């Protein structure tokens, strides 16, 4: 049994939690949600990916090398950019802006929390915080760019009417860029508002289970939530501010676009 004060969990205990997966699959089968296969893939992928990254993190902790931390975070940026790119197919030439958004968000937020003395520049802090920053930024960027593509497609007539009045590409896209940034940030803003009331965030849950004092668990959670808000704002800003340009030529013309 998992008990307070210990952080040692057997494979048997992990396997026992599959009972809840059985419930999920049963629900899907019963109501014909047709998610059984996806749930199975999700379970297998989460097991393999987390196990693999567990060994990688262990190796990095053992080596205590900041270079390896940087390499791991760079890999996360690459994979996160690839995932976000897939969800933002309607944005032309989006790869560069997405990579830049994730990389800058990670570098600036990690740099700040170290400079402010919140965390030490050690793998034990940089790896998990960096992973959270990149993961949340990836989701925000994907949502924002998806919205950007939809609105640029639906708003074509309005945008061209503004261009015809002598608006620059930026002036014509400004309202859409603002709404896209907003839609990327809102989920985290809302969950930060309701945190502790409607749901307990993962870090706090993890620390409480691992036996930390509630006050410490809460403080660490606050730091992480606030760091994430900054990271998500930064990555959303970069992705939308650069992403909209792919829709225009240098002569402030709207490019022909396939539907998103």
């Amino acid at each position, binding site marked *: 049994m998992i008990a307070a004060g210990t952080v040692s969990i057997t494979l048997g205990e992990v396997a026992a939690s599959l009972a809840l997966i059985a419930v999920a699959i049963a629900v899907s089968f019963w109501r014909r949600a047709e998610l059984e296969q996806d749930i199975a893939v999700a379970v297998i992928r989460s097991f393999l990916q987390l196990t693999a990254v567990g060994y990688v993190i262990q190796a990095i902790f053992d080596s205590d090398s900041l270079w390896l931390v940087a390499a791991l975070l760079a890999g996360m940026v690459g994979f996160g950019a690839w995932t976000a790119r897939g969800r933002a197919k309607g944005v032309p030439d989006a790869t560069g802006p997405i990579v830049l958004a994730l990389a800058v968000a990670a570098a600036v937020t990690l740099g700040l929390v170290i400079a402010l003395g919140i965390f030490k520049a050690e793998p034990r802090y940089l790896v998990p915080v960096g992973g959270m920053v990149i993961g949340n930024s990836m989701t925000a960027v994907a949502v924002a760019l998806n919205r950007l593509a939809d609105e640029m497609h639906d708003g074509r007539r309005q945008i*061209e*009417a503004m261009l015809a009045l*002598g608006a620059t590409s930026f002036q014509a896209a400004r309202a859409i860029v603002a709404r896209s940034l907003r839609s990327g940030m809102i989920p985290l803003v809302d969950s930060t508002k309701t945190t502790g009331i409607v749901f307990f965030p993962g870090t706090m849950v993890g620390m409480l289970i691992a036996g930390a004092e509630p006050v410490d668990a809460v403080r660490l959670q606050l730091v992480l939530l606030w760091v994430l808000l900054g990271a998500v704002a930064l990555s959303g800003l970069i992705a939308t501010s650069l992403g909209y340009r792919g829709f225009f030529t240098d002569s402030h*013309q*709207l490019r022909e676009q396939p539907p998103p």
Partner: protein
Amino acid sequence: MSLSIPYGSTALLGPSGSGKSTLLRLLNRLADPDAGVVRFHGTDVRELDPLDLRRRVGLVPQLPAPVPGSVADNVRFGPRLEGREVDPEPPVRLAGLDPSFLDRDASRLSVGEQQRVMLARALALEPEMLLLDEPTASLDADATAAVEHALRNLHDLSYVLVTHNAEQADRLTERTIRLEQGRVHR
């Protein structure tokens, strides 16, 4: 295809799909031709600043596309893009709308009224020339008459009217250029 459009009012007449609207978009550089040259006062338009060109050659779109806000907000929109404030009343009068429309929400007007707001918005930039892309295609008879009346009162302004309606071309313009399948039909 080769054609020149002189001062005054010119109709580009042709069936849908004949390339009228595309041709219009080349004139203010909302698009560039795959081949060939468009000249404005003898200068290749690609050598002009596209934003300046679009202020000098205003476009009224086929369907109204107002920005959120009042009629006055819409009329001020173009000049504000370059940091200028204008009195919205003269262009609104010129477009055949009563100044009482200025404070009304543009998105709540009828399509015919919105189309005259589009005309006023283009006029607010004091263009040398207007491009009118089937400005009455989506309007009923009364609204069409109102827009045509406004256009006939633009005495000193050159404009190019794209239309598929030969009678409208005769009513509104001094000369007509017929387009068929992307070619000038003389």
